[in-house]
């Protein structure tokens, strides 16, 4: 039983890791080697691709831009989703279920044609080409998700805790900040991870709402196509570097994630 | 149906237990006979659930063996041991109807349809849940769910034993009476070994023919409710059995004679000698509140003042603070109509009901010596 389980897990991990390995493999090769033929590992390993990324300003600023708007998005999403999730988990109110469903429907808008209205909207309010524009746009799909995940965690906290706090004399904001939020830390960790993930990998909105100053890494990567073809090595190296912040985020929230997954009905 | 023997059994949740405190269960030897109704009684954390899970096979003991009818079953899974277990909190399969819940263990064994139908009806009737059979289990109340959980344990007629882990926790007190009675009737009808874990002495005593009292990972006494009540072999049993528990008074030996709060006890010589021989150990006199008699102060051995009266409806419990040592309370159980004021009362301790303990263990003396 256990052997069979481990075998399934192992096979699946191999399935997942081979393409990742291939990405790393490519990032350590020169373009000649990549295009020259099949090599299972870099025959002439080179760090040139990484050197490009860490020395050319257009590359590393785009990383910083991405990190900026992703962090902003995480902060905004959590900030607005926390009270809303509390409302959904504790009360019934006029139109609550419809509101919940409406939030979910915001993931359904096909991005391709909404790009133009988005572009015009953010230009109209003067936010075009700023990280905040991307952060706000990504809220469209991250906030509903955050509300949904947090609501699950909050429902797991007995409402008697809230009442005890009110009986003890806490006002709602004090209770929420000093008692409630610390209690659902694992849930916040899990939510932050999902917000990070969806915001970090999104391409279309991020590319449309920025041009020069706030250009994100995903947009920068599409510019590896030049007259002489795609610069595969640099693209792969950029991809590998793009994985790192995500791994760091999971690493930092790993205990929360494992515990959060254990507690919540995510 | 089976006799369950625990041979040199011990369990520790640590990898390398060294001190006795590292053991959740200390080394024990014990037999549950075929067809008996047993209770495993103890406070929370005494190891009773651990022991239950070892018997059912959910937990593998770190030392010793579990034998069913003489065959070691350590390596067998719960399904191979063929036992049923009812848990503290109801476990039902939410998406199934009550009928399907009850039929589940039988269908898993591949019983024919007619048998399943008949058994389920029989058990449902016994538990009075027939009207619920077509309902989805998720919509039941807690005690209905617990009845369904019990029903799943009772529905198999071939089990070696049924183990209950505090099954009435979620049940209303008024209903507890009926359910306990149902279980007892079912036991008498099906003649199956039942082990019932609880922290409630009344529940244990009313359900079981024999009770094993557990304390600190050990079975400190195994006996009928009457034995546990009348002759506790450990002060813990005295304290834990009976409501309120046994009164325990410190004794000191003065010049070879046993004294209690300055008064020499009126005892046969053999007892004085026996107690004096234990000098140095912690000596205690134990007597049940039921056996302490209230007498006029001038006829009594001990006197005290009434400190608190608890009316229990059918009787009263009076706390008497001794005159010699007001910190020492003696509980006395008196009739519901007995009227008492805040006066000084006398206490008489009948010799036949006095028990003596050295370092918490019962001291005994053979009849000839007395």
């Amino acid at each position: 039983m256990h052997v069979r389980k481990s075998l399934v897990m192992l096979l699946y991990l191999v399935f997942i890791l081979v393409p990742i390995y291939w990405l790393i493999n490519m990032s350590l090769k020169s373009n000649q080697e990549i295009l020259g033929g099949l090599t299972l590992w870099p025959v002439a390993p080179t760090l040139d691709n990484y050197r490009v990324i860490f020395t050319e300003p257009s590359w590393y600023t785009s990383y910083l831009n991405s990190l900026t708007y992703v962090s902003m998005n995480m902060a905004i999403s959590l900030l607005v989703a926390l009270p809303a999730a509390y409302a959904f988990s504790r009360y019934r109110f006029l139109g609550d279920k419809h509101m919940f469903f409406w939030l979910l429907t915001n993931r359904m808008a096909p991005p391709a044609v909404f790009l133009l209205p988005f572009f015009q909207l953010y230009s109209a309010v003067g936010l075009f080409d700023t990280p905040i524009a991307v952060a706000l746009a990504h809220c469209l799909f991250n906030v509903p998700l955050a509300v949904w995940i947090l609501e699950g965690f909050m429902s797991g906290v007995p409402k008697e805790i809230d009442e005890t706090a009110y009986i003890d004399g806490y006002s709602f904001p004090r209770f929420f900040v000093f008692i409630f939020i610390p209690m659902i830390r694992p849930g916040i960790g899990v939510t932050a991870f999902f917000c990070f993930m969806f915001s970090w990998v999104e391409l279309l909105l991020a590319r449309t709402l920025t041009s020069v100053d706030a250009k994100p890494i995903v947009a920068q990567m599409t510019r590896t196509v030049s007259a002489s073809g795609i610069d595969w090595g640099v693209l792969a190296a950029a991809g590998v570097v793009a994985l790192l912040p995500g791994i760091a985020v999971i690493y930092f929230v790993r205990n929360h994630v494992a515990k959060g997954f254990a507690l919540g009905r995510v | 149906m089976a006799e369950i023997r625990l041979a040199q059994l011990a369990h520790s949740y640590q990898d390398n237990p060294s001190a006795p405190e590292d053991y959740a269960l200390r080394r024990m030897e014990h037999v549950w006979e075929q067809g008996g109704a047993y209770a495993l009684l103890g406070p929370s954390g005494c190891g009773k659930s651990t022991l239950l899970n070892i018997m059912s096979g959910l937990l593998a003991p770190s030392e010793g063996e579990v034998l069913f009818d003489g065959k070691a079953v350590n390596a067998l899974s719960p399904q191979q041991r063929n036992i049923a277990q009812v848990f503290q909190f109801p476990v039902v399969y939410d998406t199934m109807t009550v009928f399907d819940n009850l039929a589940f263990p039988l269908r898993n064994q591949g019983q024919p349809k007619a048998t399943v139908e008949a058994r389920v009806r029989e058990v449902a009737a016994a538990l009075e849940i027939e009207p619920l059979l077509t309902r989805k289990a998720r919509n039941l109340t807690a005690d209905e769910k617990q009845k369904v959980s019990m029903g799943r344990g009772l529905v198999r007629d071939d089990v070696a034993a049924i183990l209950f882990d505090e099954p009435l926790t979620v049940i209303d007190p008024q209903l507890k009476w009926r359910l306990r009675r149902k279980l007892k009737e079912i036991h008498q009808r099906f003649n199956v070994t039942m082990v019932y874990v609880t922290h409630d002495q009344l529940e244990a005593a009313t359900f079981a023919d024999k009770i094993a009292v557990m304390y600190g990972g050990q079975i400190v006494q195994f006996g009928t409710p009457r034995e546990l009540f009348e002759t506790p072999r450990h002060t813990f049993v005295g304290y834990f059995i009976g409501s309120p528990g046994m009164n325990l008074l410190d004794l000191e030996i003065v010049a070879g004679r046993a004294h209690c709060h300055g008064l020499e006890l009126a005892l046969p010589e053999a007892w004085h000698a026996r107690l004096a021989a234990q000098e140095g150990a912690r000596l205690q006199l134990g007597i049940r509140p039921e056996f302490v008699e209230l007498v006029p102060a001038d006829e009594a051995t001990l006197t005290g003042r009434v400190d608190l009266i608890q009316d229990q409806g059918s009787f009263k419990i009076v706390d008497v603070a001794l005159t010699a040592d007001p910190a020492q309370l003696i509980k006395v159980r008196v009739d519901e109509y007995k009227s008492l004021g805040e006066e000084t009362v006398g206490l008489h301790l009948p010799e036949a009901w006095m028990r003596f303990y050295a370092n918490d263990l019962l001291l005994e003396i053979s009849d000839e010596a007395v």
Partner: protein
Amino acid sequence: MKPYNNKAWWLVLPVFVLVAFSAIIPMMTVVNYSVQDIFDPSTRYFVGTEWYREILSDPRLHDSLVRQFIYSFCVLAIEIPLGIIVALSMPRRGLGVPVSLILLALPLLVPWNVVGTIWQIIGREDIGLYGSLLNGLGIDYNYASSPRDAWITVLIMDVWHWTSLVALLCYSGLRSIPDVYYQAARIDRASAWAVFRYIQLPKLKNVLLIAVMLRFMDSFMIYTEPFVLTGGGPGTATTFLSQTLTQMALGQFDLGRAAAFSLIYFLIILLVTWVFYTAMTHNDDKG
């Protein structure tokens, strides 16, 4: 029983304002576009429902809609069961838990265009591991020329990319099942299948709801990955709805037509999602 209190709206208000800003205004704009023929912002003519009529009878829509439904169906049919299997195979305690969590999450963290790039390379029969492996085994595989191979490659790429999400969600659902349920099942002699069917699956219902919805919505709107991989080709084998739409909106700069298209698109997703949502939640209301 939750108390009824309309003051709770104040707590939801920030979310409402934020999402309304980035959803309702663009949505209204799209509706406005869809009834006009737009040449530039100042030159536009009201055309009523003409665009809708035209698109609804456009064979390109029919073709890509059918392709899209087949694709989304395949994605769900593979990723949901596979995700559940992976979640069931996750270690329950020890060091294995964080390690497998991190490894599982890796594909999710790869930017979507890089996902396409990886598979573009790894599937090539000359320089890619899988492509050359398959051809070495005597299987004729070329995603750039064979529509079937391209289609399968996009599907496998999606499975690689997103199954982890399903698995993570299911894992969290499984962790919320108390041990005592498994113990009771062992004692009732339930088979592994019965344990799954009657204990795990009911508890997974909530997470599966979100997993199915997320995967349906995202797969229905898939754009970046097949675009990078094959540009929708060969032919129109991997031209899904989103790409048809983009070709219309950007390629032909036919804003009105594209807006009508995306509203029809939106309505399709809305209906399917609502059916899922209602089917999976309306039982809870009774309980």
